[in-house]
């Protein structure tokens, strides 16, 4: 009898608990936003900074009660997929997003992945926000991709011009991994350098992506005595080793890249040898950062234990998606509406001080607005940290 009573009491308590939790989760419907990108291997830092930025921001929004779009308040659910920098897996990831009813996907991180998913995205009505630079992804007839950062053919000329004016560089050498992303960045970098009047002394040297010892790779490049060594499309894992090998071979000139890097990885891999290394930074600096950006950095660090400077850029994609949906709630399930809204969209930028705006750009580069407007911040590495070299805007 006693056992039966306590059993019934437990059963009742369990049912009440289920009812409460069920009720709580039924309060806000879920808005799924996808991520397809590289979260393992040498380039993992690129994708993980995306995923963690989105998850940090989503948790924050949900904690504050959710995001209100067209009178309905949603909880944000980030649906992530590791494509391992493999285009086949990126396609599988995008198809999974379609199956889950996701219309807005951040990523992929690299050229071939972004190109591979284009047919899936266009067929299944998905807007995707890659971090890949080929113009064909964003210029007509392409319609569904929006570049999430500043492209190397936008940042490269700005960097080279700055160095010509301030450091008097004349000779430049390029080295790239033997992969489509770095090679295409190298080619556009060479084109930009030549159009600015720089002398390209070496541009044929490439290396296998899995190279660990770069001394034999860089030896012929260093012999050409460049003033600037450009590491085209270099991954955060390879950058410190390339810098270290160059410096150990006696190279004393400037080293730069147009990809985002990680200060902690540079410090561990190259130490003081990385001082002076120029890279494209996260779209924030202490001068530009608002309280919201600082709060975001704190929440990210608390959640994951360490921050990645790249997340200053990667935080924008989710923000743009949500703000655009707020501006046109019909776009929640219709990317055509989203595309129309992009042309005139403008909203306050919560991550920058002053009256900075969120808006879509890209008319100059792509003939249509298919790029997020984020500040171009060029950094130089110094003693474990990035210091701002200059800030610009691109179109």
């Amino acid at each position, binding site marked *: 009898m006693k056992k039966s009573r306590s059993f019934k009491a437990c059963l009742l308590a369990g049912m009440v608990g289920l009812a409460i939790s069920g009720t709580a989760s039924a309060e806000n419907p879920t808005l799924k936003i996808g991520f397809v990108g590289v979260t393992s291997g040498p380039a993992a*830092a690129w994708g993980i900074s995306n995923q963690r930025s989105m998850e940090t921001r989503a948790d924050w929004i949900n904690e504050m009660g959710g995001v209100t779009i067209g009178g309905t308040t949603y909880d944000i659910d980030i649906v992530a997929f590791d494509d391992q920098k493999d285009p086949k897996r990126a396609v599988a990831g995008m198809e999974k997003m379609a199956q889950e009813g996701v219309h807005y996907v951040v990523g992929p991180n690299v050229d071939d992945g972004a190109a591979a998913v284009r047919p899936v995205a266009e067929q299944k009505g998905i807007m995707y926000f890659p971090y890949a630079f080929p113009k064909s992804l964003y210029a007509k007839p392409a319609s569904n991709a929006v570049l999430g950062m500043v492209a190397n053919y936008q940042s490269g000329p700005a960097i080279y011009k700055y160095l010509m004016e301030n450091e008097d560089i004349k000779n430049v050498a390029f080295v790239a991994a033997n992969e489509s992303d770095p090679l295409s960045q190298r080619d556009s970098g060479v084109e930009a350098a030549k159009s600015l009047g720089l002398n390209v002394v070496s541009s*044929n040297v490439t290396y296998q992506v899995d190279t660990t010892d770069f001394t034999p790779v860089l030896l012929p490049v260093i012999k050409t005595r460049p003033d600037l060594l450009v590491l085209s499309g270099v991954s955060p894992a390879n950058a410190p080793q390339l810098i270290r090998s160059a410096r*150990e*071979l006696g190279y004393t000139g400037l080293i730069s890249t147009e990809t985002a890097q990680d200060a902690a990885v540079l410090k561990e891999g190259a130490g003081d040898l990385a001082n002076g290394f120029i890279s494209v930074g996260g779209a924030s600096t202490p001068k530009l950062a608002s309280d919201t950006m600082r709060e975001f950095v704190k929440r990210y660090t608390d959640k994951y234990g360490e921050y990645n400077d790249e997340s200053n850029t990667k935080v924008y994609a989710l923000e743009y998606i949500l703000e655009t949906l707020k501006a046109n709630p019909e776009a929640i399930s219709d990317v055509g509406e989203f595309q129309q809204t992009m042309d005139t969209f403008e909203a306050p930028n919560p991550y920058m001080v002053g009256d900075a705006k969120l808006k879509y750009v890209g008319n100059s580069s792509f003939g249509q607005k298919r790029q997020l407007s984020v500040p171009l911040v060029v950094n130089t590495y110094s003693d474990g940290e990035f210091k701002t070299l200059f800030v610009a805007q691109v179109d």
Partner: protein
Amino acid sequence: MEQIVVNGLYLGAQYALIALGLTLIFSLMNVMNFAHGQMYVLGGFVTYTAVSQFDIPFFIALIISGLTLAIVGALIEKFLFRPVIKKSKRDESTMLLAAGIGFFLDSIILLLFGEKQRGVPKIVDGVFNWDFKIIMPYDRIVIGLIAIAMIITFMLIMHYSKAGRAMRALAQDKVAATLMGVDVDRYQMIGFALGAMLAGVVGGLLVSITGINLGMGGPTSTKAFIMIMIGGAGVIPGAIAGGFILGMMESVGLSVLSEYGDITYLLIFASLMIFLAIRPHGLMGKPWG
């Protein structure tokens, strides 16, 4: 030219040490350890964690890496390979098992150590510069010498210790060795543990030079296979020869062929295919297996 030769010798010493562990395991158990690269990566991360998180001196951290991988190797042999080898009649079973262990270790490494590239400070500062004909950082010279010392020590152990003689007997003829009283299970476990330990120690040594990240496992395994195919699978001097040959080919190819783009490995693989077509058992491998 002097720089190319020195680079080749340095690369060769590293590669030989990586290949030794793989060929030892193959000689004892006829198992292609596809997880060898992942063991190398795990060793590197253990050294990194010991040095960076616990401030343990680098050489002590290396010993910890070696011991950790020896234990991991012994456990893998005893609880995974041994039952499969005893029960399965097909060689493919152990290959699949090794591949599966590789994927498993990749996931464990990602969970435990994260996705980022990691490194430790240089163990020796400064660069040896002989009139710009040979430029070699001192830490690479130290690591290269340690690698050569370890190869010599390994050869001495294999030739003069009881365990080494037992393992060589098993590699030559398992049935005869068993009949002579060699405990197959015990020495196979020791051999696997030793092979894994070598991979782990190399990973630990090189974390101070090239750093370590999760993605290094697969390519390291591939290079190790190339080396033992050149030298002859299961033959220890062959692994050393294969390591140095690959190191020199890389060094020469990257320096001499750089202006033609990245064709060094294309030529290495093409040469390997022709070589294996002519001599499929490698330089020192036995044609009868």
